């Protein structure tokens, strides 16, 4: 089992004709993902990596019976492409694009909340169910199938943690990169809900970072609703207030909210062991299983 994506997921790549779109389409196909169409306005009728391109997402979805998309559209056009995916409608949209203006995402999020579409990202590495499908840019080779669910705000940190898990023989059910932006679709709570309901996920790793209060909210949710054991990690303990640490969302506000300390305390209070290093995270998972 898995959450969000599996071997039956039929994927449209939005922005398939761009450099990144094309490269990662090939990578996704190679991993076994069922990429059935691309969508780029004005490029309908073309083919990329053997995949037919349509002018609109709705037509791509209709003609190829797609249910998910992955988005490599440049930031200036990404919000429009997201609205298009929500309208198609698709069940899942994974937005890889980094640098979407926050107000654009606020409007997308407003609309997405009214729909039944899962939005993952933006500014995320994607979603992978090892051995079945990956939607995004995650390097497939480091993942291995298993029963650990992974939720992370960061891409390469995810790889690091997965590497530590895989090294100990702890395979993954699904890994979800929820993204490093201030406003994202699927958040920790949404992802925890999915994993908690998944019979084949036996433990969940959540990699948080400074900024916002999502980890604190997740801790409260875990305390109330999550039976599956959860292990945590928080990046940014050394980040000074007021400085954006790469991710648009990774910033400790001037008034001191969003600190690593607050998140670690909240998680620990909810019974979630928080590792000091990625290795310790893997140790903690190992202890639970």
């Amino acid at each position, binding site marked *: 089992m898995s959450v969000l994506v599996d071997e039956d997921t039929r994927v449209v790549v939005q922005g398939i004709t761009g450099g990144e779109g094309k490269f990662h389409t090939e990578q996704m196909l190679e991993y076994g993902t069922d990429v059935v169409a691309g969508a780029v306005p004005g490029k309908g009728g073309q083919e990329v990596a053997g995949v037919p391109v349509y002018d609109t997402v709705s037509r791509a979805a209709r003609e190829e019976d797609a249910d998910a998309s992955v988005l490599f559209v440049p*930031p*200036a056009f990404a919000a429009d492409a997201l609205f298009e995916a929500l309208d198609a409608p698709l069940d899942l949209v994974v937005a890889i694009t980094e*640098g*979407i*203006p*926050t*107000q*654009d*995402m*606020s*409007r997308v*999020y*407003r*609309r997405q909340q009214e729909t039944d579409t899962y939005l993952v990202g933006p500014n995320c*590495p994607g979603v992978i169910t090892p051995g079945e499908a990956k939607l995004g*840019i*995650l*390097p497939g080779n*480091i993942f291995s199938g298993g029963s650990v669910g992974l939720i*992370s*705000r*960061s*891409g*390469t*940190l*995810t*790889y*690091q943690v997965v*590497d530590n898990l895989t090294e100990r023989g702890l395979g993954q059910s699904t890994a979800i990169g929820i993204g*490093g932006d201030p*406003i994202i679709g699927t958040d920790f709570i949404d992802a925890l809900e999915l994993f908690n309901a998944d019979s084949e996920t036996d433990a969940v790793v959540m*990699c948080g*970072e*400074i*900024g*916002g*209060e*999502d980890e604190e*909210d997740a801790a409260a949710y875990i305390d109330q609703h999550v039976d599956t054991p959860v292990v945590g990690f928080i*990046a*940014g*303990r*050394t*980040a*000074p207030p007021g*400085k*954006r*640490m*790469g*991710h*648009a*969302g*990774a910033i400790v506000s*001037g*008034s001191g909210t969003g600190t*690593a300390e607050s998140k670690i305390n909240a998680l620990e209070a909810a019974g979630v062991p928080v590792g*000091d*290093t*990625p*290795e310790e995270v893997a140790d903690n998972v190992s202890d639970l299983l």
Partner: protein
Amino acid sequence: MRLHEYQAKEVFAEAGIPVPDAELARTVEEAVAAAEEIGYPVAIKAQVHVGGRGKAGGIELVENETEAREAADRILGMDLKGFHVDRVLVEDAVNFVNEVYVGVTMDRGVGRPVAMVSSRGGVNIEEVAEEDPDAIAREHIDPAFGMHDFQARKAVYDAGLDRDVAGDVASILTTLYDLWEERDGADAEINPLMVTADDEVIAADAVFNIDGDALFRQPDLAELEDEAAEDDLEAKANEYGFDYVRLDGNVGIIGNGAGLVMTTLDLVDYYGGAPANFLDIGGGAKAERVANALDMVFSDENVDAVVFNIFGGITRGDEVANGINSALEQFDDIPKPVIVRLAGTKAEEGMEILNTDLVQVEATLEDAVQAAVAAAEEVDS
């Protein structure tokens, strides 16, 4: 991206928000001339990105030429919480009977903008928020509709403002919101919005931070960016297109991906060292970008050793290794010891490529960080 007070006021004034008469001055003479033209009393205000300028001595109220000259002379060139003051705003001192606060920001917790009004203006609003949260009326805005007029009124009346100024303050809040929306604001604030004896309102201070990701569609504001940049290294990072933050320590850090770089910083700290910077080279970096990153960190005189931590996804270990080799081969003497750890895509190839005469290679993140901390300590001692 943060605007200076004088830049923010220009933007606000253009949108129709009343601001005091003011002129920017870069020299004492310019400041005195401006004061004479505006008419005393005037405020002389340091233009630096620092909160609490008043308390820190960056703002002075002067009544005549002598005072103006003294104040300008003292403030221009001063160091204000680490920032060098090279510009002052000379501004008509408003006679006020009351100070209120209005602001707009994104509440990321709910994914929606929030408009705020408080009758407790003129003081640090974050302190007010902590001491007495009810003193700030908050109105969440539906980003699909924008701010309804009733919401501005509701915020103003809920904040307990006098009915005599409520209409004007609501209309300023509406303008501020529209501006924030049209110009891709991150935070927009007027604190204080002064109320005069005859119920006029005027923006005595102005904060306007822009969403950096939206500067592509705000070309006129993007042009102001250079003017607002303060730190040489941060300006260089902008030029190179790196996410970079300078810190106090002596272990230079380069990595790919924000979360992993932050984690590397945290591990430096965890193993007893002190990070000198955050530097994310992003995904898919090629040799030139690697060289630029090394240049950045070498340029920081505080740095005693460098840890280069790459977990390749899109980024390829072999490319990074080649970049590191060629960047370091230019030097007769490597300026600071460099410890490299490569994992993920083409990591093994990269490890083989790396010239171990120039760098120290470590297999795990933990080992690499510990080695860098040790190297920095050695240099430092």
